[in-house]
């Protein structure tokens, strides 16, 4: 008797394709001549959406280019998707998508030809590449402009087309280097939405390199903070934001300098700002910080004119990591 039970439906977006760390950098050092771009970087990027955060010149792009095999490290080793970058660069590149920071396209092509061509270069058969090119162009919002020559595209459209060529072959890992560069606010929001969707709904592992904290905070769950060619901190964003305590912005009437000294004597971390506001870091996760500060102010006969708990953001994490707080 024939089996009439329905065929099992395949989940179009299985949760993870690679469960180990997607990238491992082990004591990695890269130089441009005499300039050290990466200095003994050891980092582990878990699966999912990971932000690579840091100011310009921190070494984010250098790290991505090293992972792609564009740069040969002076020392150290790298693994991408469990494969050694030095030993299997082509196998790695077959499984990753790269969206470069700078404007990049192949001249003389329209969008659909370009994306299909990139798909073929990544190993897709011509018909599959063409079909997926149409699909991803609709996905990134360029469906209506897909027959236009790339050289007529605006900056925002060029960013989208770079994303399309990076995902056309359905990579296991995406490297996105400053994906919102040069985009207007609306386009930027849409791009972030796409990246969030890829990382969270389509379960594509991605590493987003950016100096824009809100971009990383919105799209990623884990962050690696880089500064001056080293890893300043790393961890899940929520954990980095939440475990250290709360920051209060405080303005007082009275001898501010003396009160700062009192606060420090009580064990608080206090930072004076350029204005008459001090930032007080109260360790721990309890909500008694404000009460304690009011208590101290009363004891020292100082009038509190302003006290506002600052919601910890990735900016605080970043500032703490690079020693700005």
């Amino acid at each position, binding site marked *: 008797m024939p089996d009439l039970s329905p065929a099992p439906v395949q989940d*179009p*977006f*299985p949760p993870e394709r690679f469960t180990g760390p997607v990238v491992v950098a082990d004591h990695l050092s890269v130089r*441009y*001549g*005499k*300039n050290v771009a990466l200095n003994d970087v050891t980092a582990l990027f878990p699966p999912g959406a990971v932000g690579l955060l840091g100011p310009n010149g921190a070494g984010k792009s250098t790290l991505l*280019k090293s992972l*792609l*095999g*564009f*740069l040969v490290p002076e020392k150290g080793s790298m693994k991408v998707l469990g494969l050694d970058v030095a030993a299997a660069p*082509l*196998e790695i*590149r*077959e499984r*990753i998508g*790269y969206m*470069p920071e*700078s*404007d*990049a*396209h*192949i*001249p*003389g092509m329209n969008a659909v030809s370009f994306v299909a*061509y*990139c798909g*073929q*270069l*990544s*190993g*897709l*058969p011509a018909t*599959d590449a063409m079909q*997926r090119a149409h*699909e*991803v162009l*609709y*996905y*990134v919002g360029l469906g209506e402009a897909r027959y236009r020559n790339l050289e007529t595209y605006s900056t925002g459209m060029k960013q989208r087309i770079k994303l399309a*060529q990076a*995902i056309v*072959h*359905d990579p296991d890992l995406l490297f996105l280097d400053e994906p919102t560069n040069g985009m207007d606010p609306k386009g930027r929001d849409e791009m972030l939405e796409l990246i969030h*969707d*890829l990382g969270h*709904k*389509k379960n594509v592992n991605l590493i987003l390199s950016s100096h824009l904290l809100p971009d990383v905070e919105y799209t990623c769950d884990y962050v690696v903070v880089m500064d001056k060619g080293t890893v300043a901190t790393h961890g899940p964003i929520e954990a980095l934001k939440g475990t250290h305590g709360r920051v209060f912005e405080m303005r007082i009437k009275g001898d501010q300098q003396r009160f700062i000294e009192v606060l420090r004597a009580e064990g608080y971390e206090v930072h004076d700002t350029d204005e008459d506001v001090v930032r007080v870091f109260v360790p721990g996760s309890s909500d008694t910080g404000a009460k304690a500060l009011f208590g101290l102010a009363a004891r020292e006969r100082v009038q509190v004119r302003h006290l506002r708990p600052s919601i910890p953001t990735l900016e605080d994490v970043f500032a703490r990591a690079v020693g700005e707080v």
Partner: protein
Amino acid sequence: MPIHDQGYRRYLGSRSAIGRSWQVMTRTGVMSMVSKRQFIGLMLFAWAPFVVRAVQIYVSATFTQASFLAPKGETFREFLDQQGAFVFFVTIWVGAGLIANDRRANALQLYLSKPMTSAEYIAGKLAILFLFLVSVTFLPAMMLLLTQAIFAGSLTFIRNNLYLFPAITLFSLAQVLLASTTMLALSSMSKSARFVSVMYAGLFFFTTALFNALRGITGRSSFAWLSPGASLEQLGDVIFRLPPRYTMSPAIAAVTVFVLIAGSLWILMRRVRGVEIVT
């Protein structure tokens, strides 16, 4: 599932890029060129000497009074020399922008982020120019040889001149490799295809002018190695068993051509990389 979500699906088909990407590049590059009507015009025009020679062979084979037009081994050498002009134009048209345009559009980092080595990238680009140049040198020359056999109705000429097969192959290869590698190396050194064209033309005209000036002053042609074109001519004479036209040793001519090709490949390997490093 909302339409937005359907825009991106997992790809469940097969992928086989490693070692094959250069073929995709070549195929796309060739298709891009043949889609240009003016270029097709040039390619057809490049076959005009073949038609003329074919008529010459036909007339000589058909009319005994015109037997003085019968082809000799030298005829094929002359034919390939004449094709040199088309080699020059096709090289400039096809080759000038091959890498320069990619550099202008920052496409190298896109190519090299795909499963492709820089050697494969170079091979893919070189193959585009190589194919077009072969189709205006080796292909018509071989066709001419076959035409001779067809019009003469015998293989006597071919049997008596069997060396023509390797000679045409070797000389065409030298001609095509010299032009394509030199052009590609120049193309990798600039972001402007126009500038590359000027550099290529300058390289050949200037070196030839320099050689001719020295020949005029000294009365000797042993400086032919200064000119890639003259070196190639000297090499061609030897390959086709003709008396060399310059006093330069054929070995030096061969070394000149070899050094130019090897030097161009060395430049290409250094210039084609995914990241610009300025130190």
